[in-house]
């Protein structure tokens, strides 16, 4: 019987933690599984990055041949995007969203578990290529005809396609789960416009995943058919069109980058109000900006294809520049949230501030690329590599670390050490900028991406060396983080329900929460129910910052 399943006497409750974690359908455990699995792939892809940077530090092929180098950057990109950044944000969302809307679990808990288990298995298939003649090596974008049967005849690319089909299916099922959960399982009083911004960003992200990933699936299946069953989708020799792949890939690929950034923006929107002791400025503007970004993200994909000569440049250039507007609105709102706030520079806040500054740079370089005259020179150069790392890494990964430090106490009942956290942040921040800022200049000087070697006469050596130094500094910064995590597990500072004085519902239950999440929910009258509870007296008498009055929010 369902209700007794979780009491210690139930026969379906297992003493063995292996069975417990293999059969869990609890969104909190599944969230943790996602996060742990993702960090494993983060480290794997990070090692691949170090391989790439080590080879590129100075001219000459030092220790990799071109084929292995190509596999390294291909797998680095693929694993980072599909097996790290999206799943880790999905993991945080899995853990936090049901708590923030006052629900006992996700709408479809077993499908939630199914979505998770496809990830390690898909990852194994992806990496299996290394054991069978080489992994995929055509860049994470896998352009045809290079990825077709003629030029990529090994099984590695097929494993890439199959592995990502599994991961993509999991993603789609997960997105259905999130949307259904958010619409159907909010606690009484939690209207849509009282949901935390993280929940809104997850909602829009899930919609993007649901609508964009199937198109990638169609493209990947088409490529698999070309490679294995004599299909003629992409091979011009048999009647196919190689640019079709680019359309199918990027129609997914562009919404994908918003899938990567929106949840991180949500995380930052949760953290800033708590560590500046201010309400989020312009809640509704955030909601509408998020929705606008989601909608617009489907209209810009061909800006990745400007140089094919087959794209209507004015439209895509205009739409790409336009999408910077709602993003800018968010930037200004975050600034306004902090203005005259009482800021605590705890580690989550540091990473949130890192996000704001680094994502700003990445966004600006993106707008530069939206102009075809610039893009024609910078396409496929290191300028693009700089841009994508500033938004992916400077944006989303900073957001992931912010989320980790912020919600670690909720998930484990222990707070990570602040000193080690600050060491981690500064090493990470400095290493990141050292690694990627020089790439802007390298790109402008014409250094192409995806090359294993370059001429000593090009004048690129110094910047490459600096960049490699930065990469190793980033790698080193993981050490204080790992030490912190392990030490905190062993003997960290124990905390109660609400160590940060948060605003949202996850702080209204124990750390970690019981399986059913809440013994009792506080009344929900605004987007800050726990804040309201803490300031019950003020709320009842209509005081509060910037006129936030009970009943003010519909």
């Amino acid at each position: 019987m369902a209700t007794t399943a979780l009491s210690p006497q139930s026969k379906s409750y297992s003493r063995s933690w292996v069975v417990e974690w293999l059969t869990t359908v609890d969104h909190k455990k599944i969230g943790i599984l996602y996060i742990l699995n993702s960090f494993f792939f983060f480290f794997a892809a990070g090692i691949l990055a170090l391989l790439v940077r080590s080879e590129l530090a100075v001219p000459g092929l030092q220790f990799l041949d071109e084929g292995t180098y190509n596999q390294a950057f291909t797998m680095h990109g693929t694993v980072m995007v599909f097996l790290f950044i999206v799943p880790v944000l999905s993991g945080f969302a899995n853990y936090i969203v049901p708590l923030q809307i006052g629900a006992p679990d996700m709408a479809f808990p077993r499908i939630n578990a199914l979505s998770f288990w496809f990830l390690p298995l898909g990852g194994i298939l992806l990496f299996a290529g290394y054991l069978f003649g080489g992994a995929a090596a055509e860049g994470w974008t896998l352009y045809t005809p290079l990825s077709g049967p003629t030029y990529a005849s090994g099984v590695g690319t097929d494993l890439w396609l199959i592995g990502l089909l599994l991961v993509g299916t999991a993603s789609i099922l997960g997105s259905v789960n999130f949307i259904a959960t958010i619409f159907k399982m909010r606690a009484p009083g939690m209207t849509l416009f009282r949901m935390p911004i993280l929940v809104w960003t997850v909602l829009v992200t899930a919609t993007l995943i649901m609508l964009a990933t199937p198109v990638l699936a169609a493209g990947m299946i088409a490529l698999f058919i070309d490679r294995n069953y004599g299909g003629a989708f992409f091979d011009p020799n048999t009647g196919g069109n190689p640019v079709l792949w680019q359309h199918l890939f990027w129609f997914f690929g562009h919404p994908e980058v918003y899938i990567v950034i929106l949840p991180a923006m949500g995380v930052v929107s949760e953290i800033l109000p708590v560590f500046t002791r201010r309400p989020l400025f312009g809640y509704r503007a955030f909601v509408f900006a998020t929705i606008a970004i989601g909608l617009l993200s489907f209209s810009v994909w061909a800006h990745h294809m400007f140089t094919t000569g087959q794209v209507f440049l004015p439209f895509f250039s205009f739409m790409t520049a336009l999408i910077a507007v709602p993003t800018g609105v968010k930037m200004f709102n975050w600034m306004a949230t902090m203005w005259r706030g009482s800021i605590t520079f705890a580690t989550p806040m540091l990473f949130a501030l890192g996000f704001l500054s680094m994502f700003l740079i990445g966004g600006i370089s993106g707008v530069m690329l939206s102009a075809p005259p610039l893009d024609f020179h910078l396409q496929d150069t290191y300028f693009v590599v700089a841009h994508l790392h500033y938004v992916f890494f400077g944006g989303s990964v900073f957001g992931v670390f912010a989320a980790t430090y912020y919600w670690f106490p909720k998930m484990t009942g222990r707070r990570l050490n602040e000193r080690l956290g600050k060491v981690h942040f500064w090493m990470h921040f400095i290493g990141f900028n050292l690694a990627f800022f020089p790439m802007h200049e390298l790109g402008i000087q014409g250094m192409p991406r995806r090359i294993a070697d370059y001429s000593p006469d090009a004048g690129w050596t110094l910047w490459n060396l600096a960049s490699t130094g930065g990469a190793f500094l980033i790698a080193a910064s993981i050490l204080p983080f790992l030490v912190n995590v392990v030490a905190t597990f062993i003997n960290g500072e124990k905390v109660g329900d609400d160590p940060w004085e948060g605003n949202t519902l996850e702080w209204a239950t124990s750390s970690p929460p019981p399986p059913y999440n809440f013994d009792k929910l506080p009344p929900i009258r605004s987007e800050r129910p726990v804040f309201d509870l803490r300031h019950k007296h003020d709320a009842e008498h209509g005081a509060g910052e910037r006129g936030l009055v009970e009943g003010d929010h519909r």
Partner: protein
Amino acid sequence: MNDIAFGYLLLAIGIVFALGVIYALTSHLGSAERAKPKVPRGVHLPNPSPLPVIMAVGGALLGAGLAFRGDDQPVANPWLAVPGLIVFLYGIFAWVRAAGREWDETERGPHDDDTGH
């Protein structure tokens, strides 16, 4: 660097990581669950289930069968695809049966949480 060596290196790192995770999980995350109170009335949570991991394995085997197709096999490698298909179909069958059983319990079965319905 040799591809196979890299594969084994990753495997070794994976094993070390998995051991680290196992250590972390056994030290703290598990213990909070064991001393849990009874679920409050009116809340129904689904039972733990091995079917998600079973179906994921089935799907992965099927996929591997498609990827590791030999030249003399028209669609997929039967050594992988057939077990994969069996596991996957079993998973669907078991899932539906479990859903039906849960339907029986909520619709007709006894409720021991004295919610009155």
